[in-house]
């Protein structure tokens, strides 16, 4: 039988302990048997190894081999400066590794925050003596002494209780104190047993004694810790994309490198020349600047999101947000204001009073159809009874107390009522089991008792009611039925209904019914639009709340949230995982009366259906679900530190609308990455084509490898980052979630990048190179130029051909679908800065001796630069035309 079901003697026998506690020798042996009372910490990340690991991916290995080949070439032919190339390639590898490491690794502090909930010292009874020991030395069978305010270090069964109340919120999210007794439990699970205490919870009031039944990982809290620590997210869409992109580029680079190495050998160019060719093609095909650009772009996006109240903790999450297909959101505080408001009062005489003004500090009016002087008095009596039975206070700066009580205090303030100064002598506190609370006051010889509570619990304790005449009358069946019917009407409209009564004894019986108050946490005004925006964006929103189904459904209707069915916590418990997956595949559910740990099941089921899940949470017990979800979103205002540490994003204003704004930004990042991948691809073509032409035709080498690197790691980076900061396109939230059956590096990107824009750029580069040579007396067939300056000038022209096209490519790429003119010239200041820097760089390539030496460039007379002019314009207009054609085709396809 379970330990919590056993009577004390049997329990002690089963655990081989006694009320005097374990003996020292028993403790020593149990410590060996069960181990110390500690939670398994996450294995510490070896950051050095993780960083070094960045040097072993496909990209890195390829470039490392290229660098090695450069150093070998330099060893055999030191005159060509291949060592500079080797260092440059190694520099590219280091930059890539550092940026990727920076993006992927961050300290996971959720476990550290969880461990703070476990005390370091505990009071125990051992060898019949009370002692204080380190919590880690506590063993099953120990007698734990529980006092008000103490944290509990292990799960245990209560054997003595004196008004013992615990805060179990770390396990079940319920902040109301839970009473504990010594009665053997009849529940099926320890968490439901009222004679159990748990590690990680605190004693709110009273005292008691408990026998430790489980320690360390075997505790219920150990479960949460284990779930928080061991949850491993699936790869984010961006991580998948990067792996995909790396694989594709590496494949192409290796293929072309091998083909040209073989061709070089067979055509008799010698192993050295063939190797250099292979090396050049590998370097040209690998977009060295891509990973740093992605990291910088994500970082900038996260800064923009922080300004809009969404604090991003994990950079990859930025893009994952754009892929979100389901948002599972809490109700209280996220969809609603978390400010309870009294909207209606019902007086026992039969009048219904409505109250205007929402929230705790907004003024309001009371209105009633059949209002008279008696109503006014009875309303004042009801509100006074409510005020005298509240601990909550509202002053200019602070709100203190329970939200429901704050609503009653706010209603009293609206009416201008203050509680009279009376001496409080006793309080019957509210618990989730009692569902009512009372305060007892003494005024001379007179005792006043004021009660509020759930109608079904408090009404049976009423014997009289305050009638229309302002006098007390015996409670008739008709009045009882009227009160119940009114409560039902209010509850059907999602109000929380409290019955207010008063008495003259120190017992909660024989009370006088004063009336009902209908309280609601109203939805935030901006949420309706945000939910509608999710609908058009193809994102399902699901509410997960601990509240009752009726309230949840009513709030969902008020904010326009669609749902096919309501699933309650107990119903979810009965569903098999496969059944849940099936339901969630075809229906949108609203989850009510949920326990925190059930969120994890919902997140897992949705992910198993291929959904990208964003999940909100604030409690300690939400931490596993926040970690499991693709995007864990913690509440910045009301969230616990554990939840914030477990989450990927923290909402600084707890507002659902901020999630939708963040999703818009996430989608924007996805498209911006797509834009700059296309932009980067376009510059690959003018890097590859010169080598192919040099190989097959009798022309001098048009571009050196170091010049290729100057494009990839120099001129492409800033415009790339600027494209990453581009504002969202106007259709961003009217299209389905990104990434679902869609990749960043898809055929469209290849087509536009390589085969359309790339070909124009390659043509520009080669026309510039060949025209310049022809204008300066070169004849076809001369491969080795006698004048090295002429060769360097011609190579500079090739480089400028590619760079000038990239300048306007960046501008036209600012919109993926719409005209570049529609996005505004000054709307992306970073792009203007990037252009400025590019032009300075071009000037440097032409005029600064050091730059010329490193990049093998030379001054080109201004009279020759006209050759470059037509191509950037041609590229710009061609791409604008391409987009226009796509728009026309799409508008024709859309009915």
């Amino acid at each position, binding site marked *: *039988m*379970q*330990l919590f079901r056993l009577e004390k003697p049997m329990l002690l026998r*089963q*655990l*081989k302990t006694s009320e005097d506690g374990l003996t020292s020798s028993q403790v020593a*042996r*149990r410590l*060996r*048997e*069960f*181990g110390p009372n500690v939670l*398994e910490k996450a294995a510490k990340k070896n950051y050095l190894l993780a960083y070094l690991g960045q040097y072993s991916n496909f990209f890195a290995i390829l470039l490392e081999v290229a660098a090695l080949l450069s150093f070998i070439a330099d060893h055999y032919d030191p005159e060509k400066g291949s060592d500079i190339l080797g260092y440059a390639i190694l520099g590219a590898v280091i930059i890539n590794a550092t940026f990727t490491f920076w993006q992927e690794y961050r300290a996971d502090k959720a476990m550290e925050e969880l461990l703070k909930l476990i005390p370091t010292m505990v009071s125990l009874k051992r060898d019949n003596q009370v002692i204080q020991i380190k919590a880690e030395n506590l063993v*099953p*069978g120990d007698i734990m002494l529980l006092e008000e305010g103490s944290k509990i270090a292990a799960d245990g069964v209560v054997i003595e209780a004196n008004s013992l109340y615990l805060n179990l919120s770390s396990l079940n999210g319920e902040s109301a104190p839970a009473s504990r007794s010594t009665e053997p439990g009849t529940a099926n*699970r320890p968490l439901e047993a009222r004679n159990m205490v748990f590690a990680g919870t605190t004693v709110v009031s009273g005292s008691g004694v408990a026998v430790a*039944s*489980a320690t360390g*990982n*075997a*505790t219920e809290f*150990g*479960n*949460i810790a*284990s*779930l928080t620590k*061991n*949850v*491993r997210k*699936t*790869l984010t869409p961006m*991580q*998948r994309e990067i*792996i*995909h992109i790396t694989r594709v580029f590496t494949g192409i680079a290796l293929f072309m490198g091998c083909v040209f190495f073989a061709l070089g050998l067979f055509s008799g160019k010698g192993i050295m020349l063939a190797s250099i060719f292979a090396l050049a093609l590998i370097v040209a095909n690998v977009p060295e600047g891509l990973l740093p650009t992605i990291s910088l772009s994500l970082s900038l996006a996260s800064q923009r999101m922080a300004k809009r109240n969404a604090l991003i903790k994990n950079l990859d999450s930025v893009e994952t947000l754009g892929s979100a297909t389901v948002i599972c959101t809490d109700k209280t505080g996220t969809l609603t204001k978390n400010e309870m408001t009294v909207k209606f009062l019902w007086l026992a005489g039969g009048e219904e009073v409505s109250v205007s003004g929402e929230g705790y500090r907004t003024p309001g009016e009371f209105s009633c159809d059949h209002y008279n002087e008696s109503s006014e008095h009875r309303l004042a009596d009801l509100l006074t009874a409510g005020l005298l039975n509240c601990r909550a206070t509202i002053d200019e700066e602070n709100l203190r107390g329970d939200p429901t009580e704050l609503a009653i205090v706010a209603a009293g303030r609206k009416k201008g009522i203050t509680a009279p100064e009376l001496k409080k002598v006793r309080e019957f506190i509210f618990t989730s089991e009692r569902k009512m609370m009372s305060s007892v006051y003494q005024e001379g010889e007179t005792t006043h008792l004021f009660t509020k509570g759930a109608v079904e619990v408090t009404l049976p304790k009423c014997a009289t009611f305050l009638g229309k005449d302002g006098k007390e009358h015996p409670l008739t069946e008709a009045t009882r039925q009227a009160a119940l019917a009114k409560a039902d009407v209010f509850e059907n409209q999602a109000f929380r209904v409290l019955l207010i009564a008063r008495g003259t004894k120190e017992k909660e019986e024989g009370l006088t019914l004063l009336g009902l108050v209908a309280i609601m946490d109203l939805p935030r005004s901006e949420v309706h639009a945000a939910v509608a925006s999710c609908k058009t964006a193809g994102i399902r929103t699901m509410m997960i709340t601990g509240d009752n189904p009726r309230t949840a459904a009513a709030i969902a209707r008020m904010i326009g949230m669609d749902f096919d069915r309501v699933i309650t916590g107990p119903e979810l418990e009965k569903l*098999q*995982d496969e059944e849940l997956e099936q339901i969630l595949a075809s229906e949108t559910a609203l989850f009510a009366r949920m326990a925190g740990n059930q969120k*994890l*099941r919902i997140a*897992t089921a949705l992910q*198993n*259906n*291929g959904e990208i899940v964003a999940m909100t949470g604030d409690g300690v017990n939400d931490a*596993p679900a926040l970690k499991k979800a693709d995007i864990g979103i913690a509440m910045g205002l009301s969230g616990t530190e554990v939840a914030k540490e477990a989450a990927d994003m923290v909402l600084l204003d707890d507002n659902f609308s901020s999630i939708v704004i963040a999703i818009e930004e996430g989608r924007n990042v996805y498209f911006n990455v797509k834009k700059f991948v296309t932009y980067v691809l376009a510059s690959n073509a003018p890097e590859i084509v010169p080598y192919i032409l040099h190989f097959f035709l009798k022309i001098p080498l048009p571009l050196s490898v170091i010049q290729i690197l100057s494009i990839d790691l120099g001129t492409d980076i800033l415009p790339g980052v600027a494209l990453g900061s581009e504002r969202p396109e106007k259709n961003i939230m009217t299209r389905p979630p990104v990434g679902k059956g869609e990749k960043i590096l898809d055929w469209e990107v290849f087509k536009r990048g390589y085969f359309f824009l790339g070909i124009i750029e390659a043509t520009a580069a080669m026309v510039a190179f060949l025209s310049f040579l022809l204008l300066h007396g070169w004849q076809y067939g001369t491969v080795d130029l006698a004048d090295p300056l002429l060769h360097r000038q011609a190579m500079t022209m090739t480089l400028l051909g590619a760079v000038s096209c990239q300048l306007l490519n960046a501008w036209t790429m600012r919109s993926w679908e719409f005209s570049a003119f529609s996005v505004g010239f000054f709307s992306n200041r970073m792009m203007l800065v990037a252009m400025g820097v590019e032009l300075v760089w071009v000037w440097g390539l032409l005029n600064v001796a050091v730059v010329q030496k490193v990049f093998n460039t030379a001054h080109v007379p201004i009279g020759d630069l006209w050759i470059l002019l037509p191509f950037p314009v041609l590229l710009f207009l061609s791409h604008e035309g391409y987009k226009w054609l796509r728009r026309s085709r799409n508008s024709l396809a859309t009915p």
Partner: protein
Amino acid sequence: MKVIAAVNGLVTSDIAAFYALRYAAFLDYTLCLLHVENPADSKEEVESSMSAIEETAEQYQVRTERVFLKGEPAPAIQAHLQEIRADILFCSTRMRKRFFEDSLSEKLTRLRLPADLAIVRVAHMDAVFITENILLPIREDRLSVKKFIFVSAMAKALGASTEIYSVSPAGNRRLARLDIGNAREIFQKINNRLSHYTKGFKLMAVPLRIKHSLVENEVDQIMHHLAHQKFQLMIIGGRRLSVFSQLFTEDPITRIFRYTPVNTIAFYARDAE
């Protein structure tokens, strides 16, 4: 045929003996309570434990006998097992802090025994009385007939349902390649390969579920699954590692035993004759 339970008077050995008792009750075997006398154990506690187990055995109508041996525990047990017809030996183990502690259970795992060996790590003292769900983690479809027989017998003996949790190791790159359709295909293949065991469980009327996971770290995933679901017992397959090999690799069982949140039995099938 006998089921042997090594008893030393400690709570954990009592619980291991209760598992042995339920197993013996299901197979109608004799439960042999065995103790190797040594100065570390209190004879009084050992006898008190044996009495409590015998008392419970009566309720299950299981025949019991007591055996007291002398000498070095592991060889003494090995010698005793060679003399009798024993099906399995249940022995509790303590929380292992280090990778090598040279406990009795560790020594037994390295010996060639003529009986199966079940090493029991106790996390919850009451779990043996309320075992509703047993978890059987396996790598992909690797489930031996012997382990299947042991697990199904334990499930039947404890009246529990069983979940086979098939864990397929996969690195980041493989995970990046797989979509849900691919993963489901892999899982279906594993299900097909396990179908004869599924039939076996069905024949024995043991409720069975099969679940799958593609993960980087098997032990972490199993721990996560344990915390997520409601299991009272986990049965894992043990491997006999030499002292030498333990110097270089941490046996996953050691890590599982160190941090398991539920009672766990590592099953070592007897050496082939």
